[in-house]
């Protein structure tokens, strides 16, 4: 069985930018371990020479001219922001 230790659980929570209280880490580590164990069934498949799937339907992505086709919708873009000021999204100070 795959083991995710507390340190790995803490790390993955941080990478995912989700605050997980220290006391919840053991349960999280156990759940993640269970799910990873379930995924280990994949190790018994012979995938030698198999290409990883990139597109489920064989299609060529369409191309378009690289031009501006939309814009002037600043108010709409900001209308749902939790904190918008002077035409910008506002966030806590990033640079000291």
């Amino acid at each position, binding site marked *: 069985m795959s083991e*995710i230790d507390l340190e*790995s659980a803490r790390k*993955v*929570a*941080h*990478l*995912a*930018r*989700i*605050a*997980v209280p220290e006391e919840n880490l053991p349960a*999280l580590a156990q*759940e*993640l371990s*269970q*799910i*990873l164990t*379930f*995924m*280990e*069934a*994949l*190790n018994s*498949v012979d*995938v030698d020479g*198999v*290409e*990883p*799937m*990139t*597109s*489920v*339907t064989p*299609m060529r*992505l*369409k191309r*378009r001219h690289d031009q501006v086709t939309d814009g002037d*919708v600043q108010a*709409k*873009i900001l*209308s*749902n*922001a*939790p*904190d918008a000021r002077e035409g910008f*999204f506002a*966030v*806590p*100070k*990033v640079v000291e």
Partner: protein
Amino acid sequence: MSDLNKLTIAKARDLLRAGEVTSVELTEACLAAINEGRALNAFVHDTPELALDRAGAADARIQSGDAPAMCGIPIGIKDLFCTEGVASQAASRILEGFKPEYESQVSAQLRDAGAVMLGKLNMDEFAMGSSNETSVYGNVVNPWKVDDRQLTPGGSSGGSAAAVAADLCLAATGTDTGGSIRQPAAFTGTVGIKPTYGRCSRWGIVAFASSLDQAGPMTKTVRDAAIMLEAMCGHDPKDSTSADLPVPDFESMLTGDIRGQKIGIPREYRMDGMPDEIDALWAKGAEMLRDAGAEIVDISLPHTQYALPAYYVIAPAEASSNLARYDGVRYGHRAKLEAGDGITQMYEKTRAEGFGAEVQRRVMIGTYVLSAGFYDAYYNRARKVRTLIKRDFEEAFARGIDCILTPATPSAAFGLGEMAEADPVQMYLNDVFTVTVNLAGLPGIALPAGLDAKGLPLGLQLIGRPWEEGALLRTAHVLEDASGFVSKPEKWW
């Protein structure tokens, strides 16, 4: 005319065109049913004024002689679809208060065809779940009830399925990433089709796993599925994976003639521990298709058992990437910060408060399988297995198989809360028969085919060749006719 909310799309369309009923009357009947049906918790954002406006406009349009099939038909829209000016929060706290400035392409097409949106429908948070128990709005309750227990309508399109089964609307939109249309359809005795990947535009639908997500209709009959699917399909330049193919007239393909069609029965779908009733229903379905002139062929899809583990690598990987956008900056919830908190604390607290437990779990699993050192072992291996799963189907189709018949779910609807103590993997097993179809990008339809011993609906699934929804619907229509399923839940709400 009474019980207008119980009509099918096809019947309502004919009555509307004949001038025997108005869209306003249909809409009022549904709005009343929605009000009576609060105990089901299916509709979570009602739009009665908008609905009556649109119904009035639809009536005027029909009178002027311009009546597309969906014109005047009252429907529900899953909360995953962005609807202009109407709350759209994917049943998540993190999108609390979000009112999109735009309309999803699929709901825009329905709106432009004259369909009347009654409101938004409950679902599992971000479409992650198989029981509709992960929603910020609370559980949806299945209108089917055979004892004291409240049952799940399935998920993630549980609100859509419950609303259609309980006649709160004539039909609803759903989305399906691993079975989220077909499993709830099976649990509620309704019809749900997931079209070929690329048939419906994903633009404006809150993304879960972009290489798997597809929208589709949830309806009372196969004919209704054909009518509504046609209105939802079509090329959209705003979605680069949308297929630039003509959309057939699906309804006209319901000829009832499936003579000579080859129906595959995949032996790998006969699972250990599957209830006898489901096995028997499956055999009965095959027999009905044989009686209709189809040829039944045993086939093998050897990589079936790896579909769920591959899905639970790929879908969370894509979700962890898609859900990175919920950062408390551009829309939705932002956590209250303490003095000295910086932007990282803002992200971490916002996402901890905004995402429920299952969404957090999947985002973290996805983050893990994409992280340095594990990418090849998990993510790339899963994508290779996905290639093999798709190849299984291609080989079956190359041998002349037209459709594949399987059970839709490994059980009938279970009780709400019954899976609370189980580990997450137990819940994932609900999707065992449906998830292969998403991995291979194929069209699949679930339809009711019988009742179990307790009186709960059981569904069968038909899987079609890519882009051949018409042939798939034709076979499903024959099966629907032959099984003669007409049961409805007894009204207790």
